[in-house]
């Protein structure tokens, strides 16, 4: 089974964000693998271990993105594809998906996996749009994958505790729900082995994907508070005492 995993690099979870126009200042912060995508990578590695084949890590962005591809290779992906684009963050979901699709079209993979959404822009559309672009069936928010010959039996999560099984023919595109598996760490052996693995580099321009943007982020800003929060201060003991008093006599909820 040939599996492509789309992996995005995003600002580290605890990175202090400074807004700059319609994006953030990237210079002073660390970046990491988008957590939802790490579940997709893990699922790809498990499918390969069970059914054989190849796992390809696909990522788009500036040079720093190579680090995240290397992390995927260290965890067990066989090779990487890096679409170099310094202005990736300005792409709309459709533009990004068209570029990703164009880069893997000739791979004829059996399966393309994405995470649920990215922790930065959070569009949550990439997998669905790649399926549309490549004309393949897809399913999202997947909690289990069973391969049955030329088709998949999937467990989809619905809302409010409901699930549904569906059948989906291969080749397909799946968006993986976070928490589907326990993500592995890279071993030292894996890190060493990754050094010999190939990362193919293409520029987004060279893919020849023309896509008029359908939307534009005008500006980003820190949300204005809808509620007036009363902050309690003091030692932990003082804060605890104040809180209990507020809840009892002001909010009257305990």
């Amino acid at each position, binding site marked *: 089974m040939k599996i492509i995993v789309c992996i995005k690099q995003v600002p580290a979870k605890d990175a*202090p964000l400074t807004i700059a126009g319609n994006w953030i200042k990237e210079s002073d912060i660390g970046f990491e693998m988008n957590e939802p995508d790490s579940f997709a990578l893990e699922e790809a590695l498990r499918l390969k271990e069970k059914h054989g084949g190849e796992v390809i890590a696909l990522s788009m962005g500036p040079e720093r993105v190579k680090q995240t591809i290397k992390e995927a290779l260290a965890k067990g992906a066989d090779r990487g594809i890096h679409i170099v684009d310094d202005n990736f963050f300005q792409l709309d979901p459709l533009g990004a998906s068209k570029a990703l699709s164009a880069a893997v079209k000739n791979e004829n993979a059996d399966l393309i996996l994405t995470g649920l959404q990215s922790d930065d822009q959070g569009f949550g559309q990439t997998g669905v749009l790649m399926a549309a672009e490549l004309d393949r069936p897809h399913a999202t928010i997947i909690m289990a994958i069973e391969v049955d010959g030329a088709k998949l039996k999937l467990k989809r999560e619905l809302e409010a*505790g409901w699930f*549904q099984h569906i059948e989906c023919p291969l080749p397909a595109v799946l968006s993986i729900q976070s928490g589907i598996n326990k993500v592995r760490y890279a071993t030292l052996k894996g890190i060493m082995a990754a050094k010999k693995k190939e990362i193919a580099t293409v520029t987004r321009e060279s893919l020849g994907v023309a896509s008029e943007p*359908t939307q534009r982020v*005008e500006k980003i800003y820190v949300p204005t508070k809808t509620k007036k929060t009363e902050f309690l201060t003091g030692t932990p003991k003082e804060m605890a005492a104040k809180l209990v008093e*507020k809840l009892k006599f002001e*909010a009257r909820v305990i």
Partner: protein
Amino acid sequence: MKILVVTEHRQGKWNNASFETLAAAQQIAAVTSGAVSAAVLGRGVGAFADELAGKAVNEVLSGEHDLLADYTVDGYCVALKQVIEAAKPDLVLFPHTYQVRDFAPKLAAMLGKGMIGDCIGYRNEGGKLVFVRQMFQGKTVADVSFLGAGPWFASFQAGAFRADLVQAHASGKAPVKNVSVELKAEQIRTKPLDLFKEAKSAVDLTQAPLIVAIGRGIKAPENIPQAEAVAKAMGAEIAASRPICDEGWLPMERQIGSSGQTVAPKLYLALGISGAIQHVVGMKGARTIVAINKDQNAPIFEIADYGVVGDIFEIMPALTEELQKTKGA
């Protein structure tokens, strides 16, 4: 502006977020001197269409087909494309449900259009419609506008608008128009099978008046008893954000958020929860929200009535002690 709202139902019941989006559409129509229509798809959906016709809409578009009895991506995309081509809206609005995430971006792409998903609001800036959505896990918001000609596609996050503000039809009922949908079995590539729930919920958090919820800040399962002590001293139920349940530290039935339960207790005490969108949609209806978090910029403070910036491991034991004192008194 001509607005089409795509509604959602499953197993004979509405997804109530449909009406939140209908309310949003009515409000947008009011500021853009527009008109709203509502669409419903399925098999035997006459009662749903009739109920929509009682709302303040210009018309209801009903797309019936045997192959739409169960939701499939392909079935919905093929059918809704025809509904949109017949109705010619400028703007198509959806509730941002799991089902909409599954098909709506593809539907937009089939028409060569883009979608602004998971919006929390809109603004009309001198005739230009701007959609507001969260980014960076709710730490920032973005104003996003459409480029190019419509139809434009957007979805609204659950809870962003109030369903009870949907206006009823002023004079009886709007007309229901049946859109003939052409759909063949071979166009549908996936096959929906059984719908099911896992492990019967032993606890119904929706009925709990007091909830103490933990997030990533709890760090390790061995720390959970400290939070349980707070809950016990308060007489509250314990709950959690998704990562805690994914790790198996608390059972899935105690998960609050878009993929878990939606609650509106008297008191919601969030311990070490940053307040990612997916969690907040499940609890923002609480009457009083208390957030304790070490990061003063955590989005959870946006919606908190009382905030404590500090180390939960110092505050939990102190809080338990204070609560025990008051209960004893």
